[in-house]
Structure formats: C-alpha cells, structure tokens
C-alpha cells in the first residue's frame, strides 16, 4: 500500500478538484493550492518510504519501487508542480479555469507514476494510457485557438496509432514468454530469441520510441509542441518523456536485458538518427517553441545513448540528465511564457531582442538554461551529459557517443541565436509584469540548474551506489 500511496494521494487531490468543480467552487487560487498541496503530500509520502520497501514486488509483482522509480517520481512531481506555477498567468488570461486543468494534470501525473513504477506490461500500459489521454485533452486546452485543437488531434491520432503498435508488440511478447511480468519476461525469454519475440520487441521499441519522440517517430512533436498551450508544452517536454524513459529503461534493460545485442542495433540507429535530425532541424526554426521541440527530440537521442550503454554510468546518465533537463527545459519555457504579451508573444526568436536590458535577471536565467541545455560545465546539464557520453564510450558505443558530442556542439549554434538576441541586439519596448508564480518557477529552475551543476554529489552518489532497476 505504501508504495502506491503517493499515487493515491495525487488521485485523491485530482478527484477532489473535480468534485470542487461539480459543486461549482471554481476559485483559481483554491485549485492551485489543492493541486500543489496534493503534490507536496505525494512527494512527502514518497520520501517517507524507507529502503526496506524498495525493490520488493508488490501486488503480485505489478508494481515495484526501485531507486530509479523513486528518483523519477520526484522528477515528474517537480515537473507537474513547476508546470502548475507556469500555468497561473496563462490559464487565467485565457479565462479557462484552473480547476479542471489542475485535475487533469494531476491525473496525468498518476498515470506517469504508474508508468514509472510498473513492473508488468499490463499496469505499465494502463499508466501509459492514462497519461496519454490526459495529455491529449491538455494539448487542446487553449480552446478557441485553432492550432491547439490541431495539436490535440495530431497527438491523439498518432498516439492512438502508436499505442496500437505497442500493444501488438506486447501481445507478441506475451505469446513468446507466456507472462506479462517484466522480471519474469527476462527469465522466460527463449534463447536464442525466437521470431515471435523479435517482432514483438521491434514493435514495442517503435511504440516507446514514439513516446519519447525519437526519429523517425517524432513527426508529431514539433506540431504538438507548437500548438499546445505553452505550459503544457513545457510539461510534455519533460513529464511524460521522463516517465516514458523510465518504462523504456525497465522494458529494455530489465525485461529484454539478455538480448541487448539484438535490440541495440535498432535503438542505436534510432539514437544516432534522433540526435542528428533533432539538432540539425532545430537550426532552421524561427519559432522558439518549435526550436525547443526539435532540441528536445535531440535530447531524447542523448538519453537513448545512456540506454544503449547498459552500464551504471549509462543508467545514471539517463536519470540525471532527465533531472537536469527538468530544470533547464521548464525554465526555458517559463521564460517564453514570461515574454507572452499578445497572442503568440515570446515565441519568435526576435521576441528575445534586448531582453538583457529589459529584464536582466530573466535574461541571465535564460542564459543559464541554455548553457545547461548545451551542456556547458558548471550546469546540471553537463553532469548528465557527462555520464551519458561516458557510459556510451565505456559500453563500446564510441561512434554514437562521438556523434552525440558533436551534435551537442551543434546545439550551441541554435541556442546562441537566442543568446545573441538577448545580449547583442537592440532593445525593444517594455513587456508587462508577470505574476509571482512564473517568477518563482524561473527562480527554482535557475537554482536547480546551478546547484545540481556544482553539487551533483548528493544525487549522483545515490544513483551510482544503488542497483537502479529491480531485477
């Protein structure tokens, strides 16, 4: 029970919000308070779970709390909390009502939690669908904006298609092993792997690659990221992605761990393609949300490197990079939101002109986020990339690692277009003041990026010293 207590608390908070909506209590402040309170309670409950409960199978092995799951749950809680803060101005200006919005976010988070802690294909799939379904609605939340609906539609059609592919794959894996449990799967996999397993593995891989937006299953990403409400874009770029990577890691490292030689060909190809295409495509974008979307595609490629590596550094890199990415990408999107004055303000690269003059602190914060995304040492992003690339080289994936390092140099190119605009371009008229929640979110992200860049020890020690995944 304790293992799923955080999820229960979150679900309770979400349902409470829906209830409030039913009795027509629609105060935005109350909604934000309930949602943040629910998250805080969940985080506390999670933090109180002590190691003896870790790694043991619960509920007939459908869920297991291992260090990776423990860690990533905090990441998604953080993502949801930050996104709630970001949404404050946005949702209020649209007059869209915080209550249902917060409820959907929380329920999506419940889905992510199950995606993260499941050690069974069935519960993993159910978590995935809960998360995805709430995401479709959230993508279309900017009602009245045609492109928001368009984003929801594209996300939905492709999401449903991909989950059909994933399901087909899972059914084949079940056919090959006779179990749905991930840990059992590892035990029951026939050696050498049969055709049934191979087809299943490929289709599961395709489904999961879609969820993390890897090339060539990434086509939805730019459109959805651009069309969705900006806070939700921030949410998509870290929350569901982190949860999907947890499941990815669990399926491929744990369940399919013995056949790494087979799947590393496919994932290696996808990884290299993703890094190259994502980063190159970002160069030609003029819309900041779209640029960040492509850069997040590229980042998924970096994370895949850690998955490929199949060693301690690699797994640590995956988790730490996602952790660092939480601060950097949410921060970057919060700056975009900060600049939103009119319809699509803050979305063009030109909107950043002279930001350092208008809001020196915000410009500095953006610089920190971009440096972290590029992977400049001293920021949390560097530490994550260090383990990812180091792990890949250690694991013998030298060419992908070298391509990754090169692509991370390329990323400086397009990110510095923003920096140039902020620091080196003439100034433009004043923007209006924003509410405190956005500023708070920016502050938290800056603090996190710098703090975990300079003092990564507390986290990395934990990640390196424990066997991350239940086996």
């Amino acid at each position, binding site marked *: 029970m304790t293992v799923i207590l955080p999820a229960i608390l979150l679900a309770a908070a979400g349902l409470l919000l829906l209830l409030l909506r039913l009795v027509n209590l629609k105060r935005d402040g109350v909604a934000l308070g309930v949602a943040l309170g629910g998250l805080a309670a969940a985080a506390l409950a999670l933090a109180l779970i002590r190691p003896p409960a870790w790694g043991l199978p619960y509920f007939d092995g459908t869920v297991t709390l291992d260090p990776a799951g423990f860690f990533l749950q905090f990441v998604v809680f953080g993502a949801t909390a930050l996104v709630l803060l970001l949404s404050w101005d946005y949702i209020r200006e649209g007059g869209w009502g915080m209550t249902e919005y917060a409820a959907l976010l929380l329920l999506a988070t419940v889905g992510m939690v*199950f995606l993260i802690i499941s050690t069974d294909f069935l519960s993993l799939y159910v978590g995935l669908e809960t998360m995805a*379904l709430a995401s*479709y609605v959230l993508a279309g939340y900017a009602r*009245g904006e045609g492109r928001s609906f368009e984003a*929801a539609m594209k996300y939905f059609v492709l999401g449903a298609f991909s989950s059909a592919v994933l399901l087909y794959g899972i059914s084949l894996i079940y056919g090959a092993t006779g179990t749905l449990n991930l840990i059992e799967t590892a035990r029951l996999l026939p050696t050498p792997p049969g055709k*049934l397993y191979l*087809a299943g593995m490929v289709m599961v891989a395709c489904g999961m690659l879609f969820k993390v937006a890897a090339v060539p299953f990434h086509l939805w990403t730019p459109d959805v990221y651009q069309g969705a409400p900006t806070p939700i874009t921030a949410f998509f770029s870290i929350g569901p992605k982190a949860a999907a990577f947890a499941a990815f890691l669990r399926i491929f490292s744990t369940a399919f761990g013995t056949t790494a030689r087979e799947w590393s060909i496919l994932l290696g190809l996808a990884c290299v393609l993703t890094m190259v295409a994502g980063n190159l495509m970002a160069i030609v974008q003029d819309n900041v949300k779209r640029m960040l979307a492509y850069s997040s595609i590229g980042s998924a490629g970096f994370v895949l490197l850690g998955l490929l590596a199949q060693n301690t550094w690699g797994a640590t890199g995956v988790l730490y990079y996602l952790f660092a990415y939480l601060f950097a990408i949410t921060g970057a999107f919060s700056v975009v939101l900060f600049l939103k004055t009119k319809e699509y303000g803050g979305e063009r690269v030109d909107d950043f002109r002279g930001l350092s003059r208008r809001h020196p602190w915000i410009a500095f914060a953006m610089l920190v986020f971009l440096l972290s995304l590029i992977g400049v040492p001293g920021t949390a992003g560097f530490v994550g990339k260090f383990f990812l690339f180091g792990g890949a080289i250690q694991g013998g994936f030298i060419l992908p690692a070298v391509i990754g390092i090169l692509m991370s140099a390329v990323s400086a190119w397009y990110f510095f277009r923003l920096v140039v605009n902020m620091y080196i371009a003439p100034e433009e008229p004043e923007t209006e003041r924003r509410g405190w929640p956005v500023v708070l979110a920016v502050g938290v992200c800056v603090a996190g990026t710098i703090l975990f860049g300079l003092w990564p020890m507390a986290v990395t020690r934990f990640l390196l010293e424990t066997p991350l995944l239940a086996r």
Partner: protein
Amino acid sequence: MTVHALFFYLFAALALLGAVGVVALRQPIQGAVSLLLTLLSVAALFLLRGAEFLAAAQIVIYAGGILAIFLFAIMFVAYREEEKRRRWHPQWPAAVVLGLGLAATLLAFLLRPALGVPAGLGAAQAAAGGNTEALAEVLFRTYLVPFEVISLFLIVAMVGGILMASWGVKR
C-alpha cells in the same frame, strides 16, 4: 475439416470483409456498420478460443457501447458534406502498399512461431470453476492496481470528452 475450422474460416472471412469495408466504404456510417460486422465476427472467434466472457464483453462494450458513441458522433458532425469530397488521402496507393508490406513482414515473423501444443484453458478454468471466475481471479487479485487505475482512466476520458466536446466554439 472440422466444424471448428469451418467456423473459424467463416468468421475470419467476415471479419476481414468488415475491415475492408471500414477502410473502403464512402460514408462513415457505412464504415461503422462494417465495423460492427468485424466486431461480431471477432466475438465469435473469441468464443471459439474459449473466451466466453470476452465474447460477451466484446458485444456489450464494443458493439453496444463504443459503436454507439461513434454513431452519435457521426450523426452530430459528419453526415452532410461527405459526398462532395474525396474520401482518400492522395497518399493512398503508397499507403496500401505499405500496409500490405507491414502485414507481410509481420506474417514473415509469425508464420512459424516456436509454439508447442496449446495448453487450452481447461485446467485454469476448471480450477476456478468457469471462465468468468478464472478471469475474475486474475483480474481482481493480480491486476487489482491496474483495475483501479483504469477507473481513473475512464474518469479522465469522461471529463476530457465532455470538456473537449463543449469547447471549440469559434471566437
């Protein structure tokens, strides 16, 4: 050829026919009826594999529930203008080739799976005292947590569906 096999081929053919109908027929409403054919045939196929509960659920949930929503939506939005437009996206020849290719590659993997003699459901069902009981055993014991989560999922679906359907008024 046993009766069992005869039934299998009959329903398989009907299912495929319905599926082709969904893709090829002009009107969405025709497609929905076509899908009904497939759904019922698949339900029959479930029965042939000893999944009685599933067959019933297929008819109730799918044919009864989901398809009803579809018909509702079709009535609401898409009835009138359909005739004037092309029904297929211009990429259709390539898509058909690809779809056939996909099915063919899948078949290449699936045609000779290393599967032994089927165990049949007899033992499992006998132990629990019937198909539905055996199912409930697994569903409410092993998969209790996902079962609870799926209820959240349905809440999200309900709330989301209502929200989305109530939006979209032109500004």
